[in-house]
């Protein structure tokens, strides 16, 4: 799941202060689950903005709307009609959602309300941590289900750096060293030999931007023109 | 101070004391210290401490206790006895202890004198002619008093 967190309020406020009719648009999927951009967050942000602008004696109309997902055209379409009243959209979706919203409604000023942080998991109530860098070249098969590219701060491929202290990362003593975790897990499973050979340098072509994934079945449909 | 061996003390002391008139309640004591806190003698002479005396009784420290001079310092004001929540008649206990000490010949010298006076004249102060003369002057009746039976009465 994509994990995001609310942008500093001052930044949000500054981005929309020139406009009068603002729609705060939440997204009911990933950002709702990580408590950053669902219906409740939309309400909170809207109230906050109303208070803040009122304090500035500024007349601004703020409305609220939360879509199922902002990364699907179909859901975005559902607000086409009501959107006409608004000159500014404040999206609490992830970066993808914000862009798709902007793309869908070319005439509207679209602003992000959250910072999209990473792909992660809910470790506990209210706590999310990163698990995947979307490198496009998954090596978890070899590293015992633990991704060094994500979990090692240096993204090392061949073992821990010398800065590891008591099994913890040199950068954050709270965090376990990814390579120690990998080593211990593989040792337990009796397959340390998997990492005894040298990993060749990463092939960064897999990460060439912007990413594009086409379902095999439709390769012909979408790739025909791009040749 | 050398430790006292509990086994060398007399566990029966308290039971014996409890069998004496006035000592019956001794074992009820739970050492709250009200007796000592209210004792007027203890304020002047801390060695005399009812709570500690009872403790010595309960632990069986007979030998040491009966020798103590302070047993004779109780003013018999009964304050301890009246305020004891466990109904230990401590003033009576003091009398019992004194009786026990007397039996062991541990009474302070001079206390026997009182008994001798009673033996002889039946009262603490002799009333002779001089006294009766004075009484007469004041218009008070003569005191004759027959105490012949006392010697016999107090003979064990």
């Amino acid at each position, binding site marked *: 799941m994509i994990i995001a967190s609310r942008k500093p309020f001052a930044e949000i406020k500054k981005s929309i202060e020139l406009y009068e009719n603002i729609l705060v648009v939440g997204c009911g999927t990933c950002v709702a689950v990580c408590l950053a951009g669902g219906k409740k967050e939309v309400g909170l942000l809207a109230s906050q903005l109303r208070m803040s602008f009122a304090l500035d004696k500024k007349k601004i109309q703020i409305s609220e709307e939360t879509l199922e997902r902002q990364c699907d055209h179909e859901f975005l379409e559902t607000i086409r009609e009501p959107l006409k009243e608004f000159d500014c959209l404040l999206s609490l979706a992830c970066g993808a959602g914000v862009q798709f919203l902007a793309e869908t409604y070319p005439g509207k000023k679209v602003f992000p309300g959250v910072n999209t942080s990473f792909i992660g998991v809910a470790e506990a109530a209210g706590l999310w941590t990163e698990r995947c860098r979307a490198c496009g070249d998954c090596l978890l098969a070899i590293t015992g289900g633990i991704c060094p590219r994500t979990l090692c701060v240096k993204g090392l491929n061949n073992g821990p750096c010398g800065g590891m202290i008591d099994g913890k990362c040199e950068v954050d003593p709270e965090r376990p060293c990814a390579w120690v975790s990998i080593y211990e897990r593989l040792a337990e499973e009796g397959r340390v030999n998997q990492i005894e050979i040298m990993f060749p340098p990463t092939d960064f072509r897999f990460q060439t931007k912007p990413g594009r994934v086409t379902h095999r079945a439709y390769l012909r449909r979408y790739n025909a023109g791009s040749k | 101070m050398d430790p006292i061996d509990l086994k060398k003390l007399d566990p029966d002391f308290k039971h014996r004391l409890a069998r*004496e*008139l*006035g000592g019956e309640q001794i074992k009820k004591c739970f050492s709250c210290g009200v007796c000592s806190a209210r004792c*007027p*003698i203890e304020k*002047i*002479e801390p060695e005399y401490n009812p709570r500690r005396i009872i403790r010595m009784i309960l632990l069986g420290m007979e030998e040491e206790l009966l020798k103590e001079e302070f047993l*004779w*310092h*109780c*003013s*018999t*004001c*009964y*304050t301890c*006895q*009246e*305020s004891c929540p466990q109904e230990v*008649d401590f*003033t*009576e206990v003091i*009398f*019992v202890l*004194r*009786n026990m000490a*007397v039996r062991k010949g541990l*009474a*302070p010298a*001079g*206390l*026997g004198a*009182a*008994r001798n006076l*009673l033996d002889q004249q*039946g*009262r*603490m*102060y*002799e*009333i002779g002619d001089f*006294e009766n003369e*004075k*009484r007469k002057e*004041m*218009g*008070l*009746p003569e*005191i*004759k*008093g*027959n*105490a012949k*039976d*006392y010697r*016999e*009465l*107090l003979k064990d």
Partner: protein
Amino acid sequence: MKYAFFLGCTVPVRNLNYELSARWVARELGLELVDLEDFQCCGFPLKSLNLLDSLVVAARNLALAEQAGLPVCTLCSACGGFLSEANSHLQHNHDLKSQVNDRLKVSGLEYKGTIQVKHFIRILYEEIGIERIRERITRPLYGFSFAPHYGCHYIKPARTAGGIDPVEDPKSLTELIEVTGAKALRYETLLDCCGGSVLGIKEDLANTLAGNKLSEVNRLGGNGLVLICPFCNVMFENQQKKIEKKLEQKLKVPVLYYSQLLGLALGTDPDTLGFKLNRIKDKEFLTGFERRD
């Protein structure tokens, strides 16, 4: 109201003022006090030496009163207390009673347990009663104040003392003082013991005890300390000089018996009440009182 009058050892020899005033007051209030010839020591002095002996002695006195068919009135609190105590023990303890009666045979007496023992003050309070006394007051002692001293054996041990007063908050003497028109002082050391019983053993200890009370009463002012027991008198009056020396302080606390106080209020003169025998008197009180007439 007729009582066998038990004087004890001290009163008839050393405290004639108490005896004089008590007899006068009794007569005045219609209380008949009968002197029994063979009354001797109550037995209390023997209690420390041999409890049984002391009970035998007490029983002897009680048996004499029984013979006379009279309840006992004592002036001394220790006598009263001990005779009551012995009475109670013997009444409730059958074995003890027969043991004592065995011993009494030499005196030709038998204790039966049929009579009561009461302190003189208790008789005033309970039998005569405050109201009847009030009616008889002719010269109220308005304007004077006295510190009551109940002493220990008058009210304690409560079990055998007859429950005249709650031990922590006695009232009888206070009320009796106030019925005379005088004010009864309330003070912190009210319940303190005079120390009389240790006088013979450790005089200094006894003096310290009595000294505490005397100092407070001295501080309070007033017209004196009112007693009801000759033992207490020994401490507060006879020992006062020594106590002054010990405390390095002038006390001059006048000491008088309640019967003396009451006698004045009932209308007689100080001489009749033996005031001459009081060693420390409040002359102002006596003269002030005389001058009123």
